[in-house]
């Protein structure tokens, strides 16, 4: 087990990168602590797999350092780093049986025969592969193959870390849930550092204690699922996490705060002074649909909206509103009656986030 530290890491697949757009990873400094269960969440093509391959040593980064327990490992092979990685699509050694597949990483490390046997049986039991243990791996179903692939990572209990690169993509939904539970169990049992790459926020939050959200080659936020939900650090996090994502409204400065469509939103004095430190005109206000309060009685803090659509999703409703020329979504309880027509929306101050150049600005709260 190891603490994995990335120091101003950057990677470009082209030999002579000419600008930031040539980089798959742009300047990441980050630490994965010993024994943690982490998820690396982001859309396709944001550099997640690149980062994973750099950590495991399959790829040498163009710039920056990778440290395992404070030792630079940039030049070390995956073997020397002693790291396990499970790929998105199953890789099985098809001339071998399932048992031989699972035993392969252990045999390569020169482990004693009877210990291999115990380890393999243990993992086969966890992954429910006992029935096929002595069959040729190439005759398995896709699900089973991926389990074998994962098993080869899990049999090694002395590894620095196990990296999962969207390992459940090919697995059917029911089994997916089960395997995720298994991984969590294994993590609790052996306390191995695990990094789990996914583009599915549900998968990330069920597996990980802390999630790193990656966007455009950068980690834009690293926090617990709750932090990502309540305090998105970047407009992308707000938009990507949550269902539906955060409402983001472009606004412009005015004397008391910010303004859009002739409507003014007052800011606190602290926030106002923070805003004045920047000259950027890329300002956005964000609020989660869950935090919008809909009432039929207008007050000083509410805005009049038109209800354009109500989607009833069984346990909650999504109400689409138009405020001026902005469309906004609100998520309300199932039993909250909403009628088409005019409605008044309140945006509680503590859930209203201000973004300058896509990043959150906030008063320091003690």
């Amino acid at each position: 087990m190891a603490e994995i530290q990335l120091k101003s890491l950057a990677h470009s697949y082209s030999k002579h990168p000419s600008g930031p757009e040539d980089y798959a990873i742009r300047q990441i400094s980050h630490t994965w602590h010993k024994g943690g269960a982490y998820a690396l969440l982001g859309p396709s093509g944001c550099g997640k797999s690149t980062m994973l391959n750099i950590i495991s040593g399959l790829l040498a980064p163009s710039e920056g350092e990778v440290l395992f327990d404070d030792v630079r490992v940039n030049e070390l092979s995956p073997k020397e780093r002693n790291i396990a990685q499970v790929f998105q699509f199953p890789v099985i050694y098809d001339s071998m049986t399932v048992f031989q597949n699972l035993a392969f990483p252990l045999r390569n490390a020169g482990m004693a025969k009877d210990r291999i046997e115990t380890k393999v049986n243990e993992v086969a039991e966890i992954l429910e592969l006992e029935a096929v243990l002595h069959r040729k791996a190439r005759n398995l179903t896709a699900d089973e193959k991926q389990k074998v692939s994962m098993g080869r990572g899990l049999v090694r209990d002395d590894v620095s870390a196990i990296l999962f690169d969207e390992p459940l993509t090919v697995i059917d939904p029911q089994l997916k849930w089960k395997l995720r539970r298994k991984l969590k169990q294994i993590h609790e049992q052996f306390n191995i550092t695990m990094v789990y790459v996914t583009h599915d926020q549900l998968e990330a939050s069920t597996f990980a204690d802390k999630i790193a959200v990656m966007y455009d080659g950068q980690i834009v936020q690293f926090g617990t699922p709750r932090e990502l939900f309540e305090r998105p650090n970047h407009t992308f996090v707000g938009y990507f996490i949550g269902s539906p994502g955060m409402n983001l409204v472009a606004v412009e400065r005015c004397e008391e705060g910010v303004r859009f469509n002739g409507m003014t939103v007052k800011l606190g004095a602290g926030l106002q002074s923070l805003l004045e430190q920047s000259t950027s005109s890329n300002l956005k206000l964000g609020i989660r649909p869950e935090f919008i309060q809909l009432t039929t009685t207008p007050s000083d803090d509410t805005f009049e909206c038109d209800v354009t659509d109500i989607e009833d999703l069984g346990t909650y409703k999504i109400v689409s509103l138009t405020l001026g020329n902005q469309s906004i979504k609100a998520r309300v309880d199932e039993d909250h009656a909403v009628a088409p027509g005019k409605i008044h929306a309140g945006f509680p101050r503590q859930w209203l986030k201000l973004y300058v150049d896509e990043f959150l600005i906030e008063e320091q709260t003690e």
Partner: protein
Amino acid sequence: MNKIPDNRAWWLVLPVFILVAFSALIPLMTVVNYSVQDIFGPNSAYFVGTDWFREVLQNENLQASLGRQFVFSAAVLLIEIPLGIGVALMMPTSGRRGSLCLILLAIPLLIPWNVVGTIWQIFGRGDIGLFGWALNEIGINYNYTGNTGDAWATVLLMDVWHWTPLVALLCYSGLRAIPEAFYQAAEIDRASRWAIFRYIQLPRLKSVLVIAVLLRFMDSFMIYTEPFVLTGGGPGSSTTFLSQTLTTMAIGQFDIGRAAAFSLVYFLIVLLVSWLFFTAITHLDKEK
């Protein structure tokens, strides 16, 4: 949809049947015809049954030739297959250097057989051949026309030079077809270079190796031109292989009956051994 049985459909098979008949069946049946008759002239042919076959199988000359042939083919396979795999593994995977290697490898394959024989015949000479002269200069007494060992070594070297590139090219294409993910997984699983070869590359080379082994066996077992040009089968009959013996019998001595009988035996041996190789390799790791 209802199927309407119509036996006239069989006529559609006719073109293929005619083609196969002219390309294989009729020539083969001619040989079968000769092998069971003793023919003196246009109107004096006698049916002799299996006499020719019995005689041919007991012919010591042919037996010796057959023995040499098996030794030669075995040596060819034992050298060329591992060597070809080795060359393929060492070749650059892409870029200019890769293309250059491919071109260099392909050159021996483009040279006509009798030219190959001539090249080596001159190359190996002690007086004007670079190879023979160099060997003698460094103190090795080398003379492929007089020494049986030298003759064998030269014939084998020539075949290895001529045909290892074929094995290497086949293996190279097989290796290129292995997805990168396998190498990545193996690297993660701490596999040694040998383990990668044994468990990833070799199993995935199996199908091209079947082709390589079969081609090299059949070709080497029927070898004629190169040793004929190089050594003429000598010294003595030490490098006289099966097809040369057969040719001498059929054309030199005009012993058509015996030659026909022996051709058929020859054909059956090639067929049998090829089948054995094929079955052995393809059943190697069938599930029990």
